[in-house]
């Protein structure tokens, strides 16, 4: 193998989300001489960002004073909060939990917000490279992280080099910041290699699906924020919805399912659609049209699942580390604060040593500690979960115990051990018709002649074992219809095989998380591939 070309920076940041951008901006604010670059696999900044999102503005006030005079597109103050318990046909208004009080907060498109932050970072001298995927980690001889390896471009599906082949370069830096977002594929490698999770619980996740709609005039009440729990979930499946009313007759709607669900036949994407077609919800959308759609895993483990966030030569920040506050359903302010804290730490210290302690001593961790028992309380079902949440809220998290988290893939029950509840799901009327139609609205594009980026270690397990034990749940938990079990024809007639429609992948990472055998490994495809979200 030839020697790869090398570029050198003082700091290389992997992933241009709110954490990475905030970190890079702060680094330059503290020391304009420091060279900083950000690598982003999406074809454009913000194109693979998907979030609710209602954000707390304080970190933005700290990072970009004056931002309120130059707001990101699609950013409006919250005017009204509502919290509902849904039944199949009706709803009950619940008191808004204090964590969900959004007075003073803003509804944003996080994608648009990142695209708005990026030029401000560039103005400070940060080099931002969208369309380039960090495919590997460069280790120094002493085993420490020394940078990243950019993925090769122009490799055919069979692994050969196409005429357009271009070898990826290496970016070397004394400090690499991983801000890949939830379940980053390099962060996953680092956590394993440096055993960063040896002193914490397993990480846990949810899968969020979201659509942005253009609705009929008059349906949107800009600034209104509504959350719901209940239908279509059974009481052993954690999840809930959000509906954020935007300006110009637009509404963002989404649904989050905890990936610790036990039912092997559960379909998170379908649950979202069922919710959307609830009689009280669908009236908002009738006669409207979908502008964009997508899905992304969110990190839910919080305080007790936070891995060690420093290692020689590198730091983990943002959702890649896992600083999201689940009861608030907010991770952006935490991610930005974490990014800024990392930058400030590097401003005062020669390297990343001590960052993890600084993080654990910071308000970021205090916030997580306070709510640490709320999400795991729902392991015992919705009602006990709500009672526990009430207790934890009243006591401000001062319970002397910390509830444990368990890995999501271990929560899935075998077909023979589980009786799926009667769901009574309805025939849907609103688009999209199916997951493929939804992928269409994600504007996902992958060069199709490239190696499959969803690596399944042993497909015999899929066909011979999983089919029997779990009924191939990958065909259901994937929101993009990537996985299919197809009947073989011709010579192999009667057999089955796993068909991986990798080109549909919206990079949500659910398969990597929920597969019960943990044989699916999500790696990055060619840079610039994947969803091209607009204003999600």
């Amino acid at each position: 193998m030839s020697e790869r070309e090398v570029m050198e920076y003082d700091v290389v940041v992997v992933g241009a989300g709110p954490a990475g951008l905030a970190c890079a901006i702060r680094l330059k604010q503290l020391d304009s001489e420091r060279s900083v670059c950000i690598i982003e696999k999406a074809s454009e900044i913000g194109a693979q960002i998907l979030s609710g999102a209602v954000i707390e503005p304080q970190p933005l006030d700290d990072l970009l004073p004056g931002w309120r005079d130059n707001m990101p597109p699609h950013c409006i103050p919250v005017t009204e909060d509502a919290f509902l318990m849904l039944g199949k046909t009706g709803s009950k208004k619940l008191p808004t939990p204090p964590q969900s009080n959004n007075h003073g907060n803003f509804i944003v498109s996080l994608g648009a917000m990142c695209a708005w932050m990026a030029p401000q970072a560039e103005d400070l001298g940060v080099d931002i490279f969208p369309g380039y995927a960090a495919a590997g980690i460069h280790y120094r001889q002493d085993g420490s992280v020394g940078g990243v390896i950019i993925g090769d471009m122009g490799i055919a599906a069979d692994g050969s080099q196409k005429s357009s082949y271009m070898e990826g370069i290496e970016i070397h830096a004394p400090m690499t910041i991983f801000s890949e977002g939830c379940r980053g594929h390099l962060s996953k490698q680092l956590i394993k290699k440096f055993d960063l999770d040896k002193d914490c619980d397993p990480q846990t996740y949810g899968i969020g699906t979201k659509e942005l709609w253009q609705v009929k005039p008059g349906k949107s009440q800009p600034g209104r924020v509504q959350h719901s729990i209940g239908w279509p979930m059974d009481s052993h499946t954690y999840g809930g919805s959000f509906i954020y009313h935007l300006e110009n007759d637009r509404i963002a709607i989404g649904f989050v399912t905890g990936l610790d669900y036990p039912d092997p036949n559960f379909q998170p994407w379908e649950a979202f659609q069922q919710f959307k077609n609830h009689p009280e919800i669908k009236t908002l959308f009738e006669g409207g049209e979908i502008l964009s759609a997508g899905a992304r895993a969110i990190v839910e483990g919080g305080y007790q699942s936070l891995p060690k966030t420093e290692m020689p030569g590198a730091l983990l920040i943002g959702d890649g580390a896992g600083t999201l506050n689940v009861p608030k359903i907010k991770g952006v302010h935490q991610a930005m604060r974490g990014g800024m804290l990392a930058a400030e730490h590097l401003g005062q210290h020669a390297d990343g040593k001590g960052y993890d302690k600084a993080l654990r001593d910071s308000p970021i961790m205090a916030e997580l500690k306070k709510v640490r028992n709320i999400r795991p309380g729902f392991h015992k079902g919705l009602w006990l979960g709500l009672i526990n949440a009430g207790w934890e809220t009243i006591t401000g998290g001062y319970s002397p115990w910390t509830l444990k988290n368990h890995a999501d893939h271990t929560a899935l029950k075998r077909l023979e051990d589980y009786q799926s509840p009667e769901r009574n799901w309805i025939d849907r009327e609103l688009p999209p018709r199916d997951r493929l139609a939804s992928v269409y609205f994600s504007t996902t594009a992958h060069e199709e002649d490239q190696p499959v980026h969803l690596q399944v270690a042993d497909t015999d397990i899929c066909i011979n074992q999983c089919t029997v034990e779990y009924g191939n749940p990958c065909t259901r938990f994937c929101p993009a219809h990537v996985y299919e079990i197809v009947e073989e024809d011709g010579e192999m007639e009667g057999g089955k095989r796993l068909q991986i429609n990798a080109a549909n992948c919206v990079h949500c990472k659910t398969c990597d998380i929920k597969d019960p055998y943990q044989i699916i490994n999500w790696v990055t495809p060619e840079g610039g591939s994947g969803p091209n979200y607009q204003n999600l």
Partner: protein
Amino acid sequence: MSKILIIAEHNGTELNNATAKCVSCAAATEGSIHILVLAADGAAVAAQAAGIAGVEEVISINHANFAQVLAATQAPEIAAIAADYSHIYGPSSTFGRDLMPRVAALLGVNQVADIMSVKGPRSFQRPVYAGNAIIDVSVPEGMTIVATIRMASWAAAEGGNSAAVSKREASAETPTHSRYIGLKTEGGDLPDLQSANRVIAGGRGLGSEENFQLIYQLASKLGAGVGASRAAVDAGYVPNDMQVGQTGKIISPDLYMAFGISGAIQHVTGIKDAGTIVAINKDAEAPIFEVADIGLVGDLFSIIPEIEAAI
């Protein structure tokens, strides 16, 4: 009253069907319709043009330089007689798209591309953004209208006419900077997928590379191009360049027949401008039936031979 000149597309001996489609658009524009034949010896082509219903006059200009089609040679000749006309139409084929903008520039006007419908003598509809939006375009008074006519939107005008043919001498100066070398028609028995009038396409329902031969056979019987869904490409039945859809080819044949294709929106995006869509699928719930003009639920393996027998 509009005076419309249509530039004939031909190969020296035969008039291309595109010309009769332009006549239909001219008829919708309303006005007297003339056809201009530029050729080395245009007698045969002019006679065919004179047969198209609605044509008032065919103007035939013969010159050795018009033996082959070169926009740089033809455009000045057309510009020279343009003053007599309010509209100059050509087909939106590679012939017309090469030639007409050159004519428009010589006349100092912008060209209206791909007319799909006529709203008035100076007002038209045309597609932009690959057909994802349709715009209304008007040409202000006083400007000669130079336009290309979208082939998929217009049926050919009928025959049965015998318009007058007048011969004229070439008057424009012919540039020498462009020289025609030759034409290679594309090999193979089947027409090119992108430009075929009929396309037969197969999906995962075919089940194997061998079974896909059924599609090729039917296509060769019908003189059709062959396409495939992404699922068929991914399954390895056919090569990548046969893929029709969002990430493959966007096509608009007169007839598109889909066998064993479920019709995901990604596929349908590639055929939304097809004239007639026929769907054959064993799954009556397949989304392809929502866009098909003619649907048939059943087993393609028995239906294909039955179709072949019935033609």
